[in-house]
């Protein structure tokens, strides 16, 4: 027998109370662990998502640039347009390697499986320039050429979801009877869910001849980004957003939401800590006589204090282990909850679990136990044996 087994056996005497306290700690640790794992995963995924665009600067029509940039990343309708003149003006700026025009549009078509109307995103693109921008693209089937009509590429995720195969035709909607000439192999980003057609075809279908929604710019030297974006801003109609700005803004917004969440968690942890202290003090008071007897049979104040502290750490460490397991197992649920609270969430998984983080959660739970146990341990260790035995008898 040692102090730990003695503490564990003492806790088992009050199973219900111990279990509830452990659960309280577990919930607090689950939330803490989830937030920390989300924090590191969020930035990683956001970086990945922005980099997958393959661009350094986006030129969008004047309006809210961040909203527009976010729409470009996730898909959506930008209600304003740029023109071929704007594109030429951008291309004339020194230091630009690529300036790729895109027309992004939303359209509705029936889902092949469910028959329900589902909104979809389509990109009108210049295929060669787009491939230069995204050299990681590979295709099952073939790419279309810019001059072809009624041809389409689809992302792998979309193809799998709707049973689209190379050679099949789009059955309904504004792109009815467009032939799928190729399916993009999985990229792991938003392109997996999109339709792509030649730019002129998109302009024709939506009656937007000569109009584009975005110019994606890749620069030769990233140190020139600020100079080039400053020159681009001089072009009327154009608003410029650099990827650094997008990320910075999103991280700021997400940072505010996270601060709020952290405050809530801090409060939850404080309440949990007081709960633990209260439970322990109750337990210490109930066992005053027992501690007196222990002193009579040779325990020192330090021994009693150590036992109470061991009990506390036992509670919080068990809570820490359960909380961490719950956070790992339930990370999807927690991610879903947090997505609802953040102003912008990347598409990939945001929970990043690392051994360091698991270690931190467990060490934190032990530290919580020590902090909560100090007062009850001190109080119990100060009792003189006779006081303790007598108070227990009254």
């Amino acid at each position, binding site marked *: 027998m040692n102090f730990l087994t003695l503490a564990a056996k003492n806790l088992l005497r009050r199973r219900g109370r111990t279990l509830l306290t452990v659960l309280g700690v577990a919930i607090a640790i689950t939330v803490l662990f989830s937030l920390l794992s989300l924090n590191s995963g969020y930035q990683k995924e956001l970086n990945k998502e922005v980099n997958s665009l393959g661009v350094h600067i986006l030129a969008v029509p004047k309006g809210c640039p961040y909203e527009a940039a976010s729409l470009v990343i996730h898909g959506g309708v930008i209600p304003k347009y740029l023109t071929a003149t704007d594109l030429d003006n951008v291309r004339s700026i020194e230091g630009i390697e690529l300036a790729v025009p895109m027309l992004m549009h939303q359209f509705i078509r029936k889902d092949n499986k469910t028959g329900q109307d589902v909104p979809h995103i389509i990109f009108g693109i210049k295929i060669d320039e787009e491939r230069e921008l995204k050299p990681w693209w590979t295709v099952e089937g073939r790419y279309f050429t810019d001059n072809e009509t009624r041809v389409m590429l689809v992302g792998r995720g979309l193809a799998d979801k709707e049973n689209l195969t190379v050679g099949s035709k789009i059955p309904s909607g504004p792109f009815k009877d467009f032939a799928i000439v190729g399916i993009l192999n999985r990229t792991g980003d938003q392109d997996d869910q999109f339709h792509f057609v030649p730019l002129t075809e998109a302009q024709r279908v939506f009656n937007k001849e000569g109009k584009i929604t975005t110019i994606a710019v890749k620069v030769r030297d990233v140190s020139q980004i600020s100079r080039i974006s400053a020159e681009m801003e001089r072009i009327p109609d154009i608003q410029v957003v650099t990827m650094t700005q997008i990320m910075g803004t999103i991280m700021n917004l997400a940072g505010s939401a996270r601060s709020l969440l952290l405050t809530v968690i801090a409060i939850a942890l404080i309440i949990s800590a007081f709960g633990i202290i209260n439970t322990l003090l109750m337990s210490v008071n109930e066992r005053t006589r027992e501690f007196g007897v222990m002193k009579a049979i040779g*325990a020192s104040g330090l021994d009693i204090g150590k036992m109470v502290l061991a009990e506390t750490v036992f509670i919080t460490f068990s809570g820490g282990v359960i909380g961490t397991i719950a956070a790992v197992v339930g990370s999807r649920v927690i991610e879903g909850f947090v997505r609802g609270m953040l102003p912008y969430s990347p598409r990939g998984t945001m929970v990043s679990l690392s051994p360091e983080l698991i270690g931190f959660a467990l060490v934190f739970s032990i530290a919580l136990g020590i902090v909560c146990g100090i007062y009850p341990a001190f109080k119990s260790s100060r009792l003189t044996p006779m006081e303790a035995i007598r108070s227990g008898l009254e």
Partner: protein
Amino acid sequence: MSGIIVAENLCKVYRRGREEISALKNVNFQVDEGEFVSIIGPSGSGKTALLNVLGCLDTPTSGTLRLNGTETSGMKESELVRLRRQNIGFVFQQFYLMPTLTARENIELPLLFSRKTDNKKRIDEVLQMVGLSDRGDHLPGQLSGGEMQRVAIGRALINDPKIILADEPTGNLDSVTSGKIYELFRKLNDQGRTLVVVTHNLELARQAHKMYTLRDGRIAGCEEMDY
């Protein structure tokens, strides 16, 4: 014979609010090594107060106490803990066993506090000494009153103390079981241990070498028994 417990002019005053209660009044008391002493007296006579002071569970308001040659006045709590561990085993009327620990673990508990490890043999010896070799793995709730008191006596013996102090050890037991507990006390005394037992039971008290009577916090008499 030398006095293993020597108390001189012991006074103990308890305060309850403004009221002062003198539990012990100038008690002079000596127990020699290897002696078996009973203390009797009516309720409130100061028996338990005396036992607690003798066992260093409580400090006297005035007077001196020497235990196994060591003067206890002015000792710090940590020194008293060491003195108790090395010299004294306690037995209480209500047994005070830890309900979640088995008989064996209850007996082992003082060894945990004394930082003594690898004690299996010693615990087996003690279990045998108190006649509970086959009941070691039972929880207190599964034992009879007599068996629980035997566990408590085993717990008092595990550190091999020179002195056993027992406060009404048969107060919760029937007469047959009480008799058996006293047999065990006499056996322990035969092995050379000093015993001081507070009791209400005159018949059992007469089984000691000496019987002290306490009344109103004073020693009212001392009778040598035919041991």
